[in-house]
């Protein structure tokens, strides 16, 4: 489901998610090991993915490219637990929630 140059990320295709709400939910439901594995595979390819995607207009991304962008949105989301929190949730956030009710469509 991804452009062929990014075949290494196919095992993580479950992180191709349409909305921030879905990405954040998956993050909360994932173990640190799973998120670390995804991060370790995807982060080194972030720059290459940006270069590849920038060959297209954002409004006219082919499906595989669009999937790649959604996957990188998930990378952005898991970067917090992996790089800072060492846990899925924001520390000291308890039962608080913050729903993204409008987000720019891609």
């Amino acid at each position, binding site marked *: 489901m991804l452009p062929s140059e990014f075949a290494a990320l196919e095992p993580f295709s479950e992180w191709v998610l349409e909305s921030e709400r879905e990405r954040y939910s998956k993050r909360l439901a994932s173990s640190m090991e799973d998120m670390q594995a995804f991060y370790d595979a995807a982060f080194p390819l972030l720059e290459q993915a940006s270069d590849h995607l920038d060959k297209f207009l954002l409004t006219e991304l082919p499906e595989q490219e669009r999937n790649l962008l959604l996957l990188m949105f998930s990378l952005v989301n898991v970067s917090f637990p992996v790089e800072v929190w060492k846990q899925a949730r924001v520390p000291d956030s308890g039962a*608080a929630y913050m729903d993204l009710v409008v987000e720019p469509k891609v």
Partner: protein
Amino acid sequence: MPHFTKPEAGSWTENYPELGTGPVNYEDSIDPAYYEAEKEAIFKKTWLNVGRVEQASKVGSYFTKELAVADTSLVIVRGKDKEIRAFHNVCRHRGNKLVWNDYPGEEVKGTCRQFTCKYHAWRYSLDGDLTFVQQEQEFFDLDKADYGLKLVRCEVWEGFIFVNLDPDAQPLKEYLGEFAKGLEGYPFHEMTEVFTYKAEIGSNWKLFIDAFAEFYHAPVLHMKQAVKDEADKLFNVGYEALHYEIHSPHSMISSWGGMSPPKDLTIVKPIERALRSGLFGPWEAPDIEGLDNLPTGLNPGRHRAWGNDSFEFFPNMTLLIWKPGWYLTYHYWPTAVDKHIFEANLYFVPAKTARERLKQELAAVTFKEYALQDGNTLEATQTMLKSRVVTDFPLCDQELLLRHLHKTVADYVKEHTDAAQ
């Protein structure tokens, strides 16, 4: 010694002697009777920002706004004459809510040619005129001209739609005053890509404004968001604003940037280094007109280290403009003395490339991580205020805007109560 020069009065707070420097009483955030007074004295009397013109961009585009704090619901719509109007969202026949889907309490948006009541199919034009009554001949001397939708004052400033439930209120621009004048010409209209966050917060509305009107908390509450060495440094230095200004009932705080881009790349997280973006937004400003010559109201201290200005438009709108060319708004919509709906909107110039969109995604996600910490802290504060174990609290010079907010609320409530007697 302060890092940034304070006014001759000795401090920012003493620059406004009417504010005093003593401890501040927080009964105003826990007393249900006081909350009722605020509804009457403030939320039914002042200009409230309910959205942007882009939300009603075409003829017939509408959205509803639930105003529990003013005991009403509004529908805001662009009419055939391109004017934006606001109406009480109530059918003139028997008081049914006019515009809603499935759940009467949820806000909705859409486009239509006319409004039709779900109950008995009374119809209203986009201008609010009653145009159709089902079985009109069954009524007694009913003149449709007498039963149009109830109009609410609605005025627009720089694309921001404001309403006022008081028919005698002063004009919007006069109310917004100096600060608004100083911001005119900022390219708000170019920044139409929006991320909207919503949350119900278990605290009085003023407590969240308190949290965003000072950055004294940032190096402490959000310590773990920075890499270790940077967090230690921020904690030791603390926080000082570049400049504060008050034009009552509104106020503003001007802050340094420093993080977009950071002086030293090692102080930021790997994802920020890779995407060149973070809490302060994408490090590079978008390529649009109007960012080179900023309006005079921005960076009032004319400071080289300037990073953002945050304006508190009384009573419940925060407008925060970031140096790298984007802005956000916060709104605090009270629903009870100890509860409010918090809404944050982040506005960017629409991304043209995936890389630009990824930078915005990082800024938006980072915002949420911070706001979750802020929101949760407020519930803890509300609970302890309610205990009344401690009633008065010392506020420092960096908390000037909080002092001003609570005093302004008190002044409005007092004026209203005095007038009623």
